[in-house]
């Protein structure tokens, strides 16, 4: 690869509905990368809305998801799970199961993957089997000929438990004399599948923390001093519930162990991370493992690893010498598929009378069951300008299923607290909440966060016009039992980039163009985005491009987490397509009697100079190729201008992504029912590649946010540790009738950081929704909702308390 970087002038800044603010900067572009694209307005397919290429396959049922994979001789597996929240397994008797005529393999789990581990395993009495720490923890698995057989065989496995004391309630678990989930201090090392907690954190009982240095850096300034300088202080305590990922497709694999190669069809967000974890667990060279995810039904952060179920399936396949299908059912998915930890956040913010912030102090704790990850402080730390910030976060272990990364970990929780306190501060200061935010935007560089703040300012401006924010009335001023309110909240997210992002582009002599990458389409539409990028480079249409993704046999693909897929993989596709284009034009130039530089690709043709668009069709030109195919494989380079300093190993770019959401709700004060009427969402994510898919992501983020705000709540019985709502009937997820009018406005934000300059949207889209709703509920009723979900029970209780207080 060439390492000489040429200086190139790039336009940066914002293009928004009705205007733009742009300037030119110089960027060093690697010499083997194409020159930066102009603004979207000057491109033909990138930045234009395209329905997803695989839409018809999905809606007709022709798309093959992992659950649809059927291999010859395939067996069906079931997992034996603990009915106890805390227990020592004394004995596992599999003889009856093995004797069942339909049984083909039985495997007992030797190690638990995922969640926290004792720092010193010797602190626990040795046990032949992993200690059970939650109801639903996997113990063993069996494989049989049919699903019905598998269910029968599963029931024949006899497990003897010695039941131990347990705790599932967050506040109970914090008490010094609470039953211990782990008998000593813990660590949560990262695996190829993700996870990982800050090491060497003090632990008292079930409470691990507080940590004051999160992954994004140490405290700022001196909060004590900051509060002394404050002329006004706002403080409140906020609570959020445990939310399960509830992806439509559950976790699952079809594992096919063969002596030459292990093939695993997996519902995963990371074909490569699953492969790497399999290599780790089974001691196989990565080259002997193939992971395939042709279509995927969502993961929201919970599907990076092979999981215990996947390990079990591979063992069963190996033992039975046959492919094994193991899909979790909905109940297993709820109890063991990961979750967003709960939170309790005590947040205190100090400010001057002009609104400028002097101190932010957040103390938070929450439970991710047997896993860490309950931190909620990044929003408070990164959203606004404040010289003194202290975040103290603790994990509280409980005997419940382990948390997993979930769409913007910690952020919807953090925004729910911070954005309500900012709203309250604005009211106390007699300022409009938007005017206060104008005041506390970040104008220091701080790794590009000033650029981010500038986007937010524009988003507030155009969003408030669209939403007609000016009609907002004072809080609680509506008469009548049904009250209307308007609220606003902001989102913040980061620019994560993965350098293990590669694509191969092929041009065949018949004009076929293929793009190949191990990257998986988890439902966000990366297939279509790749087709657009390659089509743009070759002067074609997206439908002319065959996209093959989701297979580790193809060049390395980025795992889809941290909203980094589009920003990481599209530059690789463009770079590869550009190289194919260069060699293609070199090949055909001779036959056209022209110099390659005089040729261009546009509208499905090879054009010679300014010949009025006559040219020759792409296909005819391809027929002149000297070889059967031209192929180029390229990777993602570092961001032009480098990554943000001071965060080694994170590949975190300069600046970030975010948005502003405005919500309009009605609150029926007689029933406590909140109805969301309208949401206006203004977001930025670099250069939009496919605005239609982007809108879908934002719609989805808002809907998941509403669902989180109003309905979702994992309910555990305190006396048995059992989840009472492991279904979609009593675990409530919003449905069609709860969908408000949503209007999405997109900012194009050009930063000149890569050959496509694309960013990510999945996570920022869901960060502010619950907070915006809560602020709107306050505006409607004059009563602050400090706990999620905002159920009728909580709304009625809060209203009654307010009435009482007023008397």
């Amino acid at each position, binding site marked *: 690869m060439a390492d000489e970087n040429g200086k190139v002038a790039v336009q940066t800044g914002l293009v928004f509905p009705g205007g733009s603010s742009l300037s030119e900067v110089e960027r060093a572009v690697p010499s083997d990368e194409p020159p930066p694209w102009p603004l979207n307005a000057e491109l033909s397919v990138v930045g234009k809305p395209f329905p997803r290429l695989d839409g018809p396959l999905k809606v007709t049922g022709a798309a093959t998801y992992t659950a649809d994979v059927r291999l010859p001789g395939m067996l069906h597996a079931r997992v034996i799970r603990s009915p106890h929240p805390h227990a020592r397994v004394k004995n596992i008797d599999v003889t009856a199961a093995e004797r069942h005529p339909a049984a083909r393999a039985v495997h007992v789990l030797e190690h638990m993957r995922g969640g926290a581990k004792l720092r010193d395993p010797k602190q626990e009495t040795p046990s032949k089997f992993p200690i059970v720490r939650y109801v639903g923890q996997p113990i063993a698995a069996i494989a049989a000929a049919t699903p019905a057989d598998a269910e029968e065989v599963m029931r024949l496995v006899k497990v003897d438990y010695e039941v131990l004391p347990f705790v599932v309630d967050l506040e109970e678990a914090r008490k010094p004399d609470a039953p211990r989930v782990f008998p000593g201090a813990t660590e949560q090392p990262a695996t190829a599948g993700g996870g990982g907690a800050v090491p060497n954190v003090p632990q008292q009982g079930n409470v691990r923390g507080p940590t004051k240095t999160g992954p994004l850096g140490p405290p700022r300034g001196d909060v004590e001093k900051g509060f002394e300088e404050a002329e006004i202080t706002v403080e409140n305590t906020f609570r959020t519930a445990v939310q399960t990922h509830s992806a439509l497709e559950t976790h699952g694999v079809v594992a096919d162990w063969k002596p030459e190669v292990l093939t695993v069809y997996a519902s995963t967000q990371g074909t490569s991370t699953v492969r790497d974890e399999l290599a780790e667990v089974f001691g196989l060279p990565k080259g002997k493992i193939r992971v395939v995810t042709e279509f995927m039904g969502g993961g929201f952060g919970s599907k990076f690893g092979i999981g215990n179920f996947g390990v079990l399936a591979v063992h069963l396949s190996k033992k039975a010498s046959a492919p094994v299908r193991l899909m979790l059912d909905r109940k297993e998915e709820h109890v063991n598929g990961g979750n967003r930890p709960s939170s309790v956040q005590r947040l205190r913010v100090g400010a001057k009378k002009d609104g400028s912030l002097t101190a932010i102090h957040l103390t938070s704790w929450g439970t991710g069951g047997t896993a860490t990850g309950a931190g909620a402080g990044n929003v408070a730390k990164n959203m606004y300008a404040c010289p003194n910030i202290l975040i103290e976060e603790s994990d509280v272990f409980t005997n419940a299923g382990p948390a997993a990364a979930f769409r913007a970990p910690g952020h919807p929780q953090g925004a729910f607290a911070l954005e309500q306190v900012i709203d309250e501060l604005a009211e106390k200061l007699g300022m409009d909440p938007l005017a206060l935010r104008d005041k506390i935007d970040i104008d220091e560089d701080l790794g590009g966060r000033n650029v981010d703040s500038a986007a937010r300012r524009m988003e507030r401006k155009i969003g408030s016009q669209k939403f007609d924010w000016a009609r907002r009335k004072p809080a609680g001023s509506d008469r009548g039992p049904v009250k209307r309110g308007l609220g606003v909240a902001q989102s913040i997210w980061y620019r994560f980039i993965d350098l293990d992002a590669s694509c191969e582009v092929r041009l065949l002599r018949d004009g076929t163009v293929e793009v190949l990458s191990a990257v998986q389409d988890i439902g966000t539409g990366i297939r279509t985005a790749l087709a657009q990028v390659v089509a743009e480079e070759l002067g074609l249409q997206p439908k002319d491009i065959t996209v093959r993704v989701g297979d580790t046999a193809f060049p390395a693909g980025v795992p889809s987490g941290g909203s980094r897929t589009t920003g990481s993989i599209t530059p690789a596709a463009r770079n590869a397509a550009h190289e194919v284009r260069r060699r293609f034009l070199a090949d055909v130039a001779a036959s056209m009697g022209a110099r390659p530089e005089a040729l261009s690709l546009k509208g499905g043709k090879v054009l010679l100079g300014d010949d009025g668009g006559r040219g020759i069709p792409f296909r005819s030109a391809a027929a002149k190729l000297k070889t059967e195919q031209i192929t180029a494989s390229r990777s993602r380079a570092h961001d032009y201008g480098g990554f943000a300093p001071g965060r080694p190993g994170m590949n975190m770019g300069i600046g970030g992504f975010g948005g502003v959401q405005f919500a309009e709700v009605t609150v029926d004060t007689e029933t406590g029912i909140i109805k969301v009427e309208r949401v206006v969402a203004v977001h930025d994510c670099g250069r939009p590649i496919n605005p239609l898919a982007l809108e879908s992501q934002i719609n989805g983020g808002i809907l998941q946010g509403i669902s989180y705000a109003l*309905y979702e709540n994992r309910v555990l019985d305190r006396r048995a540790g059992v989840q009472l709502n492991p279904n979609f*009937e009593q675990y409530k997820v*919003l449905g069609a009738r709860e969908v408000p009018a949503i209007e999405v406005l997109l900012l194009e934000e050009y930063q000149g950081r890569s050959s496509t300059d694309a960013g990510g949207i999945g996570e920022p889209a869901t960060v502010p929704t619950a907070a915006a709703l809560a602020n709107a509920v306050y505006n409607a009723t004059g009563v602050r909702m400090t706990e999620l979900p905002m159920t*009728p029970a909580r709304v009625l209780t809060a209203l009654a308390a307010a009435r009482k207080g007023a008397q």
Partner: protein
Amino acid sequence: MNRFAWVTPSTIEEAVGALEPGALVKAGGIDLMDLLKEGLIAPQRLVNLRAVEGLDRIEEKDEGLHVGPLVTLARLAANPIVQGRYRALADAAGHAATPQIRNVATVGGNLLQRPRCWYFRSEAFVCKKKGGGRCYAHGGENAYHAIMNNKTCAAVHPSATATALLALGAKLRIAGPTDAREVPLETFFVAPEVDVMRENALGAGEIITEIVIPYPPSEAGSAYLKQGEKESFDWPLAEVAVLLERDGNRCKRAIIVLGAAGPVPVRARTAEAALADKVIDDATARAAAKAAVQGATPLEQNAYKVTIFEAIVRRTILAARGNTA
């Protein structure tokens, strides 16, 4: 789920004959499947009623409306006669469950479905309804449980159509091993204090063959309102059916039924009395609503349901007034 035999009779006699011990009737199969999957029932045989002639009719005759037990909730909700004179029933059927479920679920099955209490439905808890010794909702997670008559068992009765049919004064026709019988819905449901293991008086081997709703008196109107946490795919926190018989502005007779309030549908008789002979307006509806929840005995987490019921009773009374012919 266990293995079972599958029979498809074509007459009521055959169906009754097929109901040997260990056999269960299957109509739409919605609730039956849930119970099978959770291991709460393990029938040896399922008797599918789908092919039995004449069980899916809706007919209005002189004395009233005859509804076959196999009529789906979707058909019931869309029927113009039901929407007209039996409005509460149309609205109850039309707001239960989801469009997909309503296309399959039958009114007979809806009346006879088992409660959705999450302790009853979880194999992890052997509650009183399953022969155990306690009600786990007491002192447990009871935000969605009964606010009335909840001492023995705190599950709420799940059927929307039961709430409406009770208000409309319906009767059930039942066939069985012995003679056919007719039971007013009023006496069909069984309180947990009588027998906690069942919710109704359908005997072993019996089949509901018809639901008969009396023709409403002149100047009568009915209404049904459901309040769930959300509108799609959710159960009621409160549901209310009201039948109002009027004499001009005055209420001659009112029947007020609360669903999702107790282990069986609850007649709010004090509320009915409070309304009798009064001019129906916001104030009297409000007073009746207050009376309806007077004796409520909410558990630790569900006092909010009392507030919601009060609002929904008032709104349903006013809606019934609006629906009066």
